[in-house]
């Protein structure tokens, strides 16, 4: 008989080459010291520093050469 297994479910997920996912409500302080409240169930924080919507990811990391991605 198989037992229902437990899952590892993280609140913070570092996406290879992309943003950091953050589950839940948080206040995020950006590089200039300005705070931003998360607005959705899961938020993506830019790690490549190229987003035009910082501190949120806007997909721009995909335009960077492989080596420059986070």
């Amino acid at each position, binding site marked *: 008989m198989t037992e*229902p297994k437990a*899952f590892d479910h993280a609140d913070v*997920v570092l*996406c*290879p*080459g*992309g*943003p950091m*996912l953050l589950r839940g409500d948080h206040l995020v302080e950006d590089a200039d010291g300005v705070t931003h409240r998360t*607005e*959705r*169930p*899961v*938020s*993506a924080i830019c790690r490549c520093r190229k987003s*035009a*919507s910082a501190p*949120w*990811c*806007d*997909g*721009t990391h*995909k*335009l960077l050469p492989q080596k420059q991605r986070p």
Partner: protein
Amino acid sequence: MRRRSLTLAGWNVRLAVGVPPGHDLDFCSPGGAVLTPKPRGPLSEFVFAVLRADLDSDRATPWPAAEGHADAAITLWTLYELHYRGFDDVDDGLEWHPALLGPRHELEGDLERRLRDRFPGHQILGGFGQDFFAFVADHDGLSLAAHVQRDADRDQVLELLRVRSIYHLKEADPTAWVVPRLPVATKAALVELLYDEYGVGDPNRLHAHLWAQGMTACGLRCDYGAYIDEVPAEVLEQNNAMSLFGLHRRLRGAALGHLAAFEATSSMPSRRMAQGLERLGLPREIVDYYTEHVAADAVHEQLAVRTICGSLLEAEPGLADDVYFGAFTCLDLENRVAGRMLARWGVLDSDEGAVA
């Protein structure tokens, strides 16, 4: 409301036809009825007449052959719509009628065969996430958003909004069919994404509703399927592919691969759309719809690829081909829709992207 009975491909059907008085038509409709579309050939003409029950019973069988893709596509689209919102001139009782399901099955078979014939396959090089994003980058085609950002005029943009409305007014709905068919981790992951698409409990934030408000602000109709008669066959096929994947448990891998490719090609194009709409001075509401999707889909692409498709393939590795098949279909159909629209506007000289 009239009632009549007829024989439908050998079945006896009793139908209530006409618009019931006081029927609440749509979350945003100013009161117009949602009616069956204009036929695009002998098959759709026949089927729509059957649906509206204005065929003589002795002419109800057999169904004529479709004349071309547009005829087949509008027929299938209309049959699928019976599962979403239905039509005010079609009896709700026909949704699961065996006389409609048989021919629908054939139309679906044709569509799936044509979609599978176009799929070039995929390679396994590294981890799934990396491979999938690379696959999407390799197969991303013509961009309507780039045209809107820089060159499109107001009429072209309004035409594009009408064409896009066929999907955006039921945004996320085709994927919602898939939920009960998934393993545990994938089910949780998909609902996490859908929760955001459906407004996190706030109807004002529901994406299809944001879209409807954008349409209204632009002076366009926001009732369901209002512009169906003017959309090219490629758009019908794009819509039908999503319903096909969503409604068949067998195709759950394709449905989620399609979702992942859709989300992974949305964030940056949404920024371009927002910039183009601002350049043309279009209303705040429609700009907001796209701005919302810059941030939302930067999250959704990670969720769709990593947590949704990733967990599905962990539980059901045999579905990898279908995940890529769905992803390819999404990108390929969008490329063909873009080819058709750009050709209509004289931006591309040939319409090579069109459905043959």
